[in-house]
């Protein structure tokens, strides 16, 4: 009899334990660390002579649509990602330019124009609350500097008008990228290497226009990177012509910057509005999802415990307790479903928000791309003619004709 009582007490304890665990699980909230600290742009302490300033080309980012996590697929709007892939690199280029650590920093319309340093990026997440992007940096010789994932979770505070006036809500990411670039350059590059990188990018440009002359100045080393084999004379007339053309290439790229500037200005307001609203919805959605998940787990556990108590209970009290546990578990599971339905509403709201912004920005993206492609086509046509003339000049100088 006493053994029976002991078992019952043990079972009652287990049921209580499972119930408590379920309560704890339900009560438990996810804890997200949000950064409110602001990382400023670091400016190089020493004055860098102009000939040692590297020009930076920031490529249009990869929207990262292929890398969207499954759970985010429904709330990720591809068109917005595409719009962001032109917005974010512009802000990065602007930040780098503002840092004064580099030469010219431009958002590149294509990969045809060689720059000293290239930055490629992929947007991995962007929902108003968090932003995550992968940044890859290399130089004109083909050497990879580094690849790093940057992410930032911001607080609602960042969307307050007073803060928004200061900078983009995710400005910290761009500042961190800028600071990392500076650190890498200062730690890993000597002045000679910087000069070499600059020379390689100039020779690359020259090779693009006059391969018959400049091919021999560059070679690929064992690491697969470009290296200089010889240098053209500073007074080389062909080099002078190529430099003239490069000046014009910069003019072309500058013109494209104006396109992007217009685009960013047009996009900023609707995009900020979307991000602020998306911020709230995303947080609510995540909380509801997590809450639903916890309720499912807890409910299931309670149901299983209750079932065990009800079936193996030796007395009426245990069986009753088990039955109550099953009922409570079932209720938890049902509430989990309720939360899921609530989450669905917020997901729909997010989708609607996305579509709204999509309607706003998609034509702008289209217009931007259209103008850029058209201008690029015209410029490339002119470049092709110049290439022919340079080839003719070379041929006549060599006596080929």
């Amino acid at each position: 009899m006493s053994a029976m009582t002991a078992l019952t007490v043990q079972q009652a304890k287990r049921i209580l334990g499972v119930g408590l665990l379920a309560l704890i699980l339900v009560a438990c909230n996810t804890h997200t660390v949000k950064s409110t600290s602001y990382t400023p742009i670091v400016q190089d302490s020493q004055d860098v002579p102009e000939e040692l300033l590297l020009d930076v080309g920031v490529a249009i980012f990869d929207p990262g649509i292929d890398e969207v996590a499954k759970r985010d697929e429904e709330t990720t709007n591809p068109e917005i990602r595409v719009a962001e892939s032109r917005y974010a690199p512009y802000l990065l280029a602007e930040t780098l330019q503002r840092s004064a650590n580099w030469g010219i920093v431009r958002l590149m319309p294509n990969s045809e124009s060689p720059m000293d340093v290239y930055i490629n990026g992929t947007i991995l997440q962007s929902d108003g609350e968090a932003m995550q992007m992968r940044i890859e940096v290399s130089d004109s010789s083909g050497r990879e500097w580094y690849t790093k994932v940057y992410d930032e979770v911001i607080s609602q505070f960042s969307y307050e008008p007073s803060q928004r006036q200061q900078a983009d809500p995710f400005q910290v990411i761009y500042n961190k990228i800028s600071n990392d670039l500076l650190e890498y350059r200062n730690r890993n590059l000597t002045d000679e290497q910087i000069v070499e990188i600059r020379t390689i990018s100039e020779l690359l440009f020259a090779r693009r226009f006059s391969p018959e002359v400049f091919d021999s100045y560059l070679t690929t080393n064992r690491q697969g990177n470009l290296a200089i084999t010889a240098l053209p004379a500073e007074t080389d007339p062909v080099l002078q012509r190529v430099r003239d053309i490069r000046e014009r290439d910069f003019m072309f790229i500058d013109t494209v910057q104006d396109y992007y500037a217009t685009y960013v200005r047009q996009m900023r307001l609707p995009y900020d509005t979307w991000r602020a609203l998306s911020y709230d919805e995303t947080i609510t959605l995540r909380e509801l999802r997590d809450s639903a998940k916890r309720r499912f787990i807890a409910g299931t556990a309670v149901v299983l415990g209750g079932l065990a108590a009800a079936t193996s209970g030796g007395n009426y009290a245990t069986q009753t307790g088990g039955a109550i546990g099953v009922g409570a578990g079932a209720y938890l599971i049902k509430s989990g479903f309720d939360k899921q339905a609530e989450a669905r509403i917020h997901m729909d709201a997010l989708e609607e928000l996305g579509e709204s912004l999509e309607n706003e920005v998609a034509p702008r993206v289209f217009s931007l791309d259209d103008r850029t492609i058209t201008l690029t086509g015209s410029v490339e046509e002119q470049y092709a003619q110049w290439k022919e003339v340079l080839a003719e000049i070379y041929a006549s100088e060599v006596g080929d004709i």
Partner: protein
Amino acid sequence: MDFMQLRSDKGKQHLPLPPLSRLIALAALSLSLVACQSSSSSSSSSPSMPSSSSSSSSSPPSSSSSSSSPSSSQSSSSSSQSSGQTQSTPNSPSSQSGQQSSQGSAAGSQPSANSGSAGQQPGQAGRDGSSPAAQGSQQGSQSTGSAAGSTPTGTLSNSPGQAAGSQARLPGAGSQSGSADRAGSTGDLDSGTSQSSGGGLGRPSGDYSLDTLPDGVLSGGSGSEDSNGQASSGSGDGVAQPNGNGAMTAQERGEVLDEQLRRGYETFDGFILSERERAQAESNAAGSSAAGGSAGGGGGGGGSSSSQPQTMPESGAPPSAVLASSLPPGVSSSPPPETFPAPEDIPNGRDDDVVARQLREAAMNEPDAQLREALWQEYRNYTGIGEDQ
């Protein structure tokens, strides 16, 4: 009767004189024949110039020189233009005809210069013709053309001089061809006939080439030089560089190509600067008051080297707020065109080429529903969407 005898005596007395007069007549005839030969040879030397040779008879040196210069086949149209103009001034007295014809040829040589340069470098034809900014170079080619056509008269010596001056402004080719023109102008003044005689001496295709023209063949050193100069400049303008391979030295050719490059720069600069101006105006309209940051980016101020770090103010927001409010009124400058969504069956168009994009853009911006649908239909036809379906 006495009178009759006297006359017969006179006749007898004059009998011994005829041989002298015959000799003189023969000499005159031979001279005229020689002259005829030279003129016929000059005309025969320019077979490709139908009317210019005939006009050359009236104003010989200029037309003959011009006719000889275009001897290369491509310039026939240009030369015919100039000859047409010379013929169009028939009333002018012979003394003026030289001037007018030379002026005419100068005027005619403008198009011929263009067409000539177009003909020179096949790939460049469009550029030369289309480059609006290449006034200087056009002047240069005009002047050479005028030099070729105008050399006969003293008044025209100015034009080559001007031409040389205008060419001198253009680095490279201008200087050399300019000097050639000067030589040609001075030489032409007294070498009108000498040229023709030179042609009579037979240079079948000697007009074409600097190198193939033997200096000694022509009457005078200067004459030969300027005939060369004319030939080269004429052919250079009208034709030259096409077959100019043989005619021009590598340096000259390089200079001509450099000139083309420069013209291309001018065209490009004009194009890109106007495009920048437009883009900056739009950028400013989109939010000039906007974001300091973006202002830096778009930077109106930035100008060509736009964004200096200092000019890129932080940012954005206040302006963005302002932007929103200012956009509607900002309409005054350049309101963004209203866009209409694409029909359901139209894909996003990311892979469209330029034509398809233009069609799409036109359709999206078209307020008239019918026209818009027509544009979309055109888009479908172009991209083959309709066919797929």
